[in-house]
């Protein structure tokens, strides 16, 4: 499905990111992944991917550092070849009620979640425009689409992923670049690990399937959108939440 494609996954060492990396590699892709704190996990994952016969590059990249991201993009193209797909997966949250969110928290949350989205996209879209093909998959969140008990700054950033996806798709689809958003609900191993038993029960009550999702289920959707089988899917926000 993705044989010999070169794919970048940001935030590839977390639970969902690692599942995406594994899913892409399983379909034949070479993967470059970034991490912030999960060096050990990233390197373990790298060994796992290379054992499959794929090439894998890992790098610690600050999502708010444009120069570092440009450098990373150049390194990927140099070591793995032109990038076919970018998966903007990285994200961060803080568990803070509205009353305790200060200006610095707001700036940091929007910076990590949105500036990184913008900077990574800009770094890789340039080559995609030149080649007149490419795919971008952005990871949003149910928090940006529904009234949930989540930190306001995180929900705001994730809601913005939808607007970013729509407008970028409008700009670049003329070059054969598709841009879509995956909108996960509560996923085991993700930020969902911070939910309380009551929050989990409430989620399950409102979810038709009555359970949180698995990282591999999100990965399957990302793999599909990254592939040519999704060639007519563009500018969409696709929920994967068990039916809320």
């Amino acid at each position: 499905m993705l044989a010999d494609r070169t794919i970048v996954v940001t935030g590839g060492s977390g639970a969902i990111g690692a599942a995406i990396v594994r899913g892409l590699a399983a379909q034949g892709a070479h993967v470059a992944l970034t991490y912030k704190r999960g060096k050990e996990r990233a390197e373990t994952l790298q060994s796992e991917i290379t054992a499959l016969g794929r090439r894998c590059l890992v790098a610690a990249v600050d999502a708010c550092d444009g120069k570092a991201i440009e450098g990373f993009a150049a390194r990927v193209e140099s070591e793995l070849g032109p990038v076919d797909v970018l998966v903007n997966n990285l994200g961060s949250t803080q568990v803070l009620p509205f009353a305790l969110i200060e200006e610095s928290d707001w700036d940091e949350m929007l910076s990590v979640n949105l500036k990184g989205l913008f900077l990574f996209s800009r770094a890789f879209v340039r080559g995609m425009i030149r080649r007149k093909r490419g795919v971008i998959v952005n990871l949003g969140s149910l928090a940006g689409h529904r009234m949930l008990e989540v930190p306001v700054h995180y929900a705001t950033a994730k809601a913005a992923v939808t607007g970013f996806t729509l407008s970028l798709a409008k700009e670049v689809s003329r070059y054969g670049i598709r841009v879509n958003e995956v909108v996960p609900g509560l996923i085991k191993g993700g930020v969902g690990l911070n939910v309380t038993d009551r929050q989990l029960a409430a989620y399950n009550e409102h979810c038709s399937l009555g359970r949180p999702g698995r990282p591999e289920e999100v990965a399957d959707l990302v793999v599909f959108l990254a592939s040519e089988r999704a060639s007519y899917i563009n500018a969409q926000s696709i929920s994967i939440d068990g039916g809320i």
Partner: protein
Amino acid sequence: MESCALRPSGDANQVNYLGQSRGLCRECGDRVEVRYVARGQRVYLERLCPKHGKHDALVAGDLSWYLEAMSHDVAPCPPRKVRAEKQAPCPDACGPCLFHGQRCHLPVLPITNACNLRCPICFGYNRSAPYFMPPEEFAKRLDFLLEATGGVDLINITGGEPTLHPQLLDILRLAKRPGIGRITLNTNGLGLGRRPELAAALAELGIYVVLSLDTLHRERSTVLHGADIVDDKQRALATLQKHAIPTTILHVLVAGVNEDEMPSWLDLLAAESFVRSLTIQTMTYTGQGGSSFGPRRPIPVDEVERMIEGASAARIKVSDFMPLPTAHPLCYGVSYLFSDEAGSLHPMTRLLSKTEIAGMARDGYLLHPSDESNAAMKVALDRLWSEGAEPDILRILKNMLTALYPPGPPIDVYQRQRAAERFVKTIFVHAHMDEDTYEVGRAMRCPDQVVMDREHLVGACNFNLIYRMPDPLFGAGR
């Protein structure tokens, strides 16, 4: 115990009978009638022994406090396993009996009767031929404890002086097993200061230390401990700090001796991150040393709370204390406090009601946040923020949330518990009973229970006053 409702009149001569129960005669040990009586604002326990006459002991310095404390909700939680059939009235069938009103929240496990001090205030008994509990026996007692309780938040390993036990570390390793949360170790600190490798081992094992610290005055040390051990205490504190061992300061408050040192203990609690808790234990005039220590003046819980209010310049008020929900109000008062690295303490009552706090403390000594308490916390937090009140508490709460939910992969529940402990400290005021203040209504609600053998959990004061004496290992042997 019968009780009647009344309002404090303010008349110093007015006598009100508050209730009747049973207690002990100090002279003959007989079980005798006792009654709670208010004389003006002060509440006494009066006992009447047919052989030795009438005696009274102060149990509350303020009638209003007493009435308010007695009206608090209790956490009714009967023991999971009791002695088969009640054979005699309390305290003579303890084990506990089926009439006991509280499960064991603080199991106390003495592992030796050896001690390197002969404190005149001690309520234990040192023996000339020391006993060191074999680890196998300790393990059997733990088996019984877990069977009897189904698991506990914490255990307390004590002595004598447990650090003298040659197999202490083996025993501590045995205690690290499923069903046991926090392991606390009582010590007078002499071993910590003199054997630095011991502190390193305790830190490695994740042990919490309960350090006896009654005075930092040399003359008073001799009065209380029979020797000047101030330097040892200072060394112990430095060692605990160096190894960042979570520590409870256990301070025995003795009327006429060390009451003026309260500010030091509060400062220590506030300033040092390794000091997580302060327990003020009022002098109990019983046991090898304590029974002959004088002058005999029991200090009730509310008097200690007033001392703390004075010593803290009202930063911590009497109203910031509440009865521990799992114990009798005359036995335990507690104040939970938010704390930060800057050395400030802020009573949790500024944020939550006592009922809400009690809801988190219904399972013992440690707070167990629930969905209800979390919801109450959020509402309270919004209230403070909207009113612009208590900015320090808001800052501490934010730091705590950031520590509980760090960036990156979530931490596990134990790491989270440890992280939270840095921000919530406690002051317990604990009044053990002696023969003068003993009353079965208090004994029957005791959550501190001594694992006396492989089949009995005995309330701590019942043990100290009745069961310890004939115990061949930990008593006077008679």
